[in-house]
């Protein structure tokens, strides 16, 4: 990975950082969330600039970025598939469902398909327990998903491309 920021990334980053007051440690997580919102992940090259703006070392930024589940340091696929692994979903078979989605995509949780179409993630609980087991694709909820319905569900997103 290059350690230099290309000028367009730098420009974008500056835009993101502008509304956040400099030198305020409590702004670190909101800044990281804003950067991820724009880029889809936290490009490693941005961490130095973020640290300089917030006033902490890159190591501290990296520490926070790797501590929280929300932050990713790798780019993600076009569609993000999140399988809920909450208790209610577990009781209704979400482990098997996760395996089925993983098999259908050929990846493990946290990975992206080689064609960059899908990223598979797990989530601790989406709070939609009444329609367990739940899968979200790009934030759209799919409730009471059965293992045999996984292929069809994913195909509808493939076709959208």
């Amino acid at each position: 990975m290059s350690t230099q920021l290309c000028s367009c990334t730098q420009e974008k980053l500056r835009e993101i950082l502008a509304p956040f007051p400099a030198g305020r440690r409590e702004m670190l997580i909101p800044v990281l969330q804003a950067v991820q919102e724009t880029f889809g992940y936290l490009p490693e090259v941005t961490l130095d600039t973020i640290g300089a703006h917030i006033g902490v070392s890159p190591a501290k930024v990296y520490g926070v970025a790797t501590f929280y589940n929300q932050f990713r340091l790798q780019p993600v696929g076009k569609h993000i598939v999140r399988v809920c692994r909450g208790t209610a979903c577990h009781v209704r078979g979400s482990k098997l469902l996760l395996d089925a989605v993983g098999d259908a995509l050929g990846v493990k949780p946290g990975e992206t398909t080689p064609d960059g179409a899908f990223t598979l993630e797990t989530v601790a609980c989406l709070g939609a327990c009444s329609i367990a087991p739940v899968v979200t694709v790009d934030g759209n909820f799919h409730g009471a998903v059965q293992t045999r319905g996984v292929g069809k569900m994913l195909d509808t997103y493939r076709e959208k491309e």
Partner: protein
Amino acid sequence: MTTATTAISLMDACCSRCTHSPQTPCAQYLDCRAHGPLCHTDPACTAALNARRDAAMHIATRPIIYVGAGTCGLAAGMDQVIPAMQKALTEHGLDVMVKEVGCFGLCHREPMLDVKKPGRPRVCFDHVDVKKALAIVTRYLVNDEVPADLSMGIIATPDAAPDSPEFALPNLYDLPVLVRQRRIVLQNCGLIDPDALDEYVARGGYGALAKALAAGDNGEMVLNEVLKAGLRGRGGGGFPTGRKWQLTRAQQNTPKYLVCNADEGDPGAFMDRSVLEGDPHRVIEGMLLGALAIGADHGYIYCRAEYPLAIKRLLHSIEELEGRGLLGDNILGSGFSFHLKVKQGAGAFVCGEETALLASIEGKRGMPRVRPPYPAQSGLWGQPTCINNVETFANVAAIVDHGGAAFASVGTERSKGTKVFALTGTIKLGGLVEVPMGMTLREVVFDVGGGILDDRPFKAVQIGGPSGGCLPTAMLDTLVDYDSLIAAGAMMGSGGLVVMDDKTCMVDLARFFMEFIRNESCGKCIPCREGTTRMLEILERIVRPYRDEDTEATLQRFKSVIMLEELAQVIRDTSLCGLGQTAPNPVLSTLRYFRDEYEKHVFERTCPAGACRSLLTFTVNAEKCKGCTLCARNCPAGAIWGASKQTHVIDQAKCVHCGVCMDVCRFDAVLAQ
């Protein structure tokens, strides 16, 4: 009576004589909106405010359609119903107001939609799909026929004429799932537009704040009522809220902070989400009262990023309150100032622990620290800080309104008031329920929850999330209160109640929670970081197939099982924070109540519930098999053979015990033993 347009709010000035603004606050502003105008007598102003109050109470001259637009309603399909219905309304040329409301709690009936005609009660419809929504529009709104077959009940409204034909329908609150509930926290949820401040105010909202500010005693009355109420923290620990406030109030150091813990991370719990989505002002009013009682002028709501709708609603509510001078400097001219911000979490379960939460607000990794000093002495940036849960705050306004004694009349000796539970799992009437403390678990599961899905046998109820425990049938008469649950080996937790039938394996469930805790352990202290990993390894060894096991591994398996309880005790006694101290609870409680199931796994290598697939043997039932070849085509190991239209056979030597054959079989011909 005039129809108020949405542009005019009850919170607006009636005429130029009203001078209230954030810069020039009027002490009587809230009372005025509830009973005013107070500073002048003008029939025009009285009429205007009355009309706006009516509008906020949903007394209108045109029909109102309420759509359940909480996360669960939208997820269940309401997002498709809304545009289709709006199209139909336009086609019929109907002038109808469509209101988005939060979750009513009847998740098993989502998507839900209510219709209220002028002068009639509110008629509720469940399982609304596009077809049903169109039928409701045509039959009820166009033809004015009460569609009794589509409705599940009615809710009485203040303007409903006693001879309305809708009264032939049952009252919604008489449904078995609702009749035993007592709604304080959920009072408005699903009934009002959560984005409309005036709807909350018209129902008595912020009346407690007005009362507390009018008392002019710096929140002493609020504190006394909360102490009298015996309110205990609803986030899990059950620490007396009044006591916590007293401790923070006594601190001389300023500024002080008030924090609302909305980092509802327990899998299977969504009470806080529903309250924040359905009635955010109730929580904010509770925070204002708390801030007044402890003397804080800044507050934070730390909310999970997984709850985008809750965050959106909170931000909207805060903005509206600031615009009306109910948040900010010198609120209603009382000299009391309170600034409220929303902090988004970033997905770390441990941030539900108060010191970790504070570290996260400060922009650090969410790691707990040793207490004392307690946050009441040294919290955010070293200042006195008080942290309470969403549901705790949601109770405060009612306590101040009706008095602590009234609140304390509900519940048991040491647990007062009500508790909201998220009732999920294999239960018939899953959803959000608010029951008085002291009900038995049996009543909650069978009377309120309607029993087990498909009438299967009840096996256990998991209460309190990853920190709680699993209680069996024999413990169903345990009272729902803080102390009885602790004595039974579980805990109140935040209120997740997951019901399980005979198909759930307790060893697998313990393993599930241990995996969760292992992943969520922040890694700061060794007992939790290493101990939970070791416990998970032991549990995984129990459910792993023994075919490839050598003697050494067998020995390890038995040895580790012997050590499991001891390891659990060590983790419980020596971990730094609540996450680690309660991490072994799911294992300890299942060991206590379902020991035989562990023994079957360890000694007999079987899973009685049929859930641990790696221990099962899959065979084909020749009588049921139609030879469709589906299983053979899906088997990842190529372990199934058989010609088309012939009975298939599973080669046990090749089988990897994934169970795909059983999942895909359309004839239930694959058996697992």
